């Protein structure tokens, strides 16, 4: 089974440090829209988390006409920025709302688990993030 990021929204304080870290790791900048995990507030109810569930038979992978999606060593699916054409086929193909577009760069964005390193975990002091399968 491929490891995936689990968001326990009951513990989430909606600080979005995970999002800031994710965009820094993958794009070298801070930009919430460039994060592979998104926390969507829904006050006064709990937030909703958007993140790839690293499904066993990913529909995004074959949908990409540019071969910009690749399987990493840890088994997660990653976006190769240099190949992504921004066609949104992966977004249309994913039934789980696990991939989306960054409006600035026009690139697809999703959680690739940092190839199993999960950079976001270190900054989630609320303990809302964990690794699951």
């Amino acid at each position, binding site marked *: 089974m491929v490891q995936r990021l689990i968001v326990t929204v009951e513990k989430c*304080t*909606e*600080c*979005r*440090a995970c999002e*800031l*870290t994710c965009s*820094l790791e993958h*794009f*070298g*900048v*801070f*930009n*919430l*829209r*460039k994060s592979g995990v998104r926390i969507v507030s829904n*006050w*006064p109810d*709990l937030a909703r988390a958007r993140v790839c569930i690293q499904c066993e038979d990913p529909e995004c992978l074959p949908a990409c006409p540019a071969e910009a999606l690749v399987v990493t060593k840890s088994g997660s699916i990653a976006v190769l920025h240099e190949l992504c054409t921004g066609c949104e086929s992966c977004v249309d193909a994913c039934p789980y709302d696990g991939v989306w577009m*960054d*409006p*600035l760069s026009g690139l697809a964005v999703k959680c690739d688990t940092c190839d199993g390193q999960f950079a976001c975990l270190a*900054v989630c*002091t*609320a303990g809302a993030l964990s690794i699951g399968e």
Partner: protein
Amino acid sequence: MFECYGKKLLRIDLSTRSVSEEPLREPFIQRWVGGMGFGVKLFTNEVPATAGPLGPDNKIYISVGPLTGTLAPLFAQTCIVTKSPLTGGIINTYAGGHLGGSIKATGYDVIAIEGQADSLVYVLISPAGVRIVDCPELAGVSVRTAEEAVQKAAKTEGMHTLGIGLAGENCVRYASVISETRAFGRGGVGAVFGSKNLKVIGIAGIGDVGVADPEEFRAAVSAAYTAFAEDLAQPWSLLGSFGRVGTGSGMGLINEKHALATKHHHMTHFEQAEQIGGQAIAEQYPTRPIACLGCQVHCGMLHKPVKTKWGEVWTRGPEYESTYSLGSLCLNDDPEMLLKANDQAEEYGMDTLSLGVSIAFAMECADRGILPRDAVGDGYVLEFGNPDTTIRLIDMIANRQGLGETLADGVRRASQRIGGGSEEFALQVKGMEFAAWMPERMRGIAVTFATSNRGACHKRAPIGMELMEVIPMDSVEGRAELVAGIQNHVNAIFALVACRFAEFVLPVQQFVDLLNAATGMAYTEEQFLQLGEVIWNLERLYNLEAGIDGGEDRLPDICFEVPEDFPPEAKPLTREDFATLLSDYYAVRGWDDEGRPTPERLAALGLHD
């Protein structure tokens, strides 16, 4: 260098409904850094001291700083600088949440708003451009309703808003601007929005925020994370308790120390304080902690809707300061009344501090026979400890009805109108109502309230040190120097823009490390603190020009009376002590006997003409 800035100012002229962009040049950025620095410099350059706060010549500067929108913890705040309709002087005010990150992502470091729209409008700032939209349908609606309407109309994902309610539209002089339950609370900036017919600004940025030296920045952020983690892990951590039950966590301690302003400062201790403290409210009502962008402290307490005798209320908070002003100061011990009052203040958009003090002032006037007990009307009795009267008065103030019309202008103007000697006990400095602390008990508070450029503000005071008795509360020794240092320090971190709580944990050098790594500048600790002093003096010069002179560095007479339950071992504030504090303060600041910065000091600060 300067990768963490957009290096642009957006100027919106509501009179002509025109929009323009201006570059922020590197020497300007280098000198003024961001946030409060940008706001104060631009404001004092562009707004004449003669401008009426509610007239077309006043301008609003909404600014973010070099660390906004980054992973640096506790830098989520946005700064607003304008002319205050309460004090007539310059005001800087802050709100956290997620607005700052959204502004930063637009690429604008400053949004300047000027002129006056001829009818009610909202403004949208998004990748599609800037739009000024007429919104007569939003007249009089609550902040929340207006924010939701603008979000819906904008159809832009990830938009954050700031706006006003009825109080701002009615130019209540302490109307606040609310951003998704976070408040630009003090000084009446909501009334300035109202005077410009500006209901809401919706902001959706999609841009990147970079830093000059990513590796150094990661190291500086990591050090800051560690510092906060170590503090928060301690059982005594004040911020840790804020994260568990909110800023009201300290009420028990403050009460125990006889430092809780109660019954309009006649008392220092409130028998029922525990009922309205953060602990009780967090335990009694389903509550979860909510954080500002990138913050580990998560002091915002979000409640599920609560059914009260005044109807269902939904709120975040109340913050400590509100439980003082609308709670102990008015002798209100009902937590549901506080939830309701907090909700009203948020929906109407009013500063809970000035609001509570204004209501307590009316109660005090009734106790002294200066106002009749039936001054509220409709059978409401004007008396301390009456929650229904408090709730009623909040409605009347926002609507400027009856007694509310007088109280909507703040206690200084209200006391001038009501007379009967009420000016002597009106809890205000320079027109701004007292924050939650007692000059009668704490000398640091006495000098801070008297000298703050904002009026009776607690933001730059040694509260923790005095409360924890690291230094004696009632000693004047070295107190003025300590306060001046804190004023400089806090001003400097407000240029970044940091949350005030960051200063509880991070040493100055860590702020400087974050600043330098993000910007590529080479600030030293000394230069950074001097930035704070420069801003402080610039504000002071502006206020002097606006007619707020050293004569207004004073406390009302009531502060020199001894509260009924004053602890026998403590020393009351005397006029001699206060005179010493003030002359020490002027000396430390390099100001003359009348509180005017000397030419020598201004030259040293680079502020000479």
